[in-house]
């Protein structure tokens, strides 16, 4: 509902959306570019996601990065743009990134499939022919590497 000028109204929400965009727009575009493997489509989706935030009465304007990332994933899934890709190897330009470089090849593959391909633990376990517990442990190790980077 349009609440234009009162505190928490539409204009304030638009200002807050701009602040959220300033903070996370670049991060989300980076994520989308890798997830969709297409810079133009990523830009299009970035705009759509931020417009959707204001459409849903501005409820997502105070999101943390995790919440925004989850929101973006759900939007991509609804559009049929996420969840179907299955990576068998991680692109070299990704593994050159500081956070990824120190992971083992297996950690990279598990984390890439989980983060960028939106694959469930069960699905990754099936692909790699490993138990789910093993995949979870690998994710824990991958996060530990990111923390140290």
């Amino acid at each position, binding site marked *: *509902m*349009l*609440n*234009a*000028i*009162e505190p928490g*109204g*539409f204009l304030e929400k*638009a200002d807050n*959306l*701009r602040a959220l*965009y300033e903070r*996370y*727009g*670049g*991060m*989300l*575009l*980076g*994520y989308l*570019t*890798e997830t969709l493997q297409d810079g133009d489509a*990523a*830009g299009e989706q*970035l*705009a759509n996601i*931020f*417009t959707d935030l*204001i*459409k849903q009465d501005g409820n997502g304007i105070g999101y*943390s*990065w*995790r919440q925004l*990332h*989850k929101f973006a*994933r759900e939007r991509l899934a609804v559009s049929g743009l996420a969840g179907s890709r299955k990576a068998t190897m991680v692109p070299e330009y*990704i593994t050159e*990134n*500081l*956070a990824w470089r120190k992971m083992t090849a297996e950690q990279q593959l598990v984390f890439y499939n*989980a*983060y960028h391909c*939106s*694959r*469930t*633990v069960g699905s990754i376990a099936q692909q790699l022919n490993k138990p789910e*517990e093993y*995949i*979870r*442990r690998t*994710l*824990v190790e*991958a*996060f530990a590497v*990111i*923390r140290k*980077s």
Partner: protein
Amino acid sequence: MNVKAYIESGILETYVLGLASEAEVQELLRYKEAHPEVQLALAELETDLEHLASLMAVTPPPAIWQRIEKDIDEITRIPEAKIVKTGNSQHTYTSNGSNGQQFIEVEGKTSHIRVHRAWRWVFAAVFVLGKIFLICAIYFYLENRQAQEQIQQLKTELKHFKTVP
């Protein structure tokens, strides 16, 4: 499962990545509520994920925000004339679609108005000019009163000279 084992189980990581099932999410929220160490571990993982995203950030071209602004403008336009009352809100919003033009009128009960920042210089100039005019008015008033007194005095003296032989 004890808390340490729960934190190390990988459930938190799957939750942060958005991969946890609904049952796992509910369980995690219960653990989070009851154990501050789970809450702390979760916050650290969220920071890690944000750190990773920041390392892979791509500066968006200005056209993307322009597109978002355009979309927001379109959201504020309502195609048919109607009045929407917003719950407990003190505002009533009307939209008019006549002549193909769409706009929103905002009728607020608040006594405050929003004015463009540029107007402050105009207001400052009007204020300063007002003060100058006031000082001038007082000055000329006093001058005039003094002149009137002098005229009155001269008239008295003239009358006095005329009456003295």
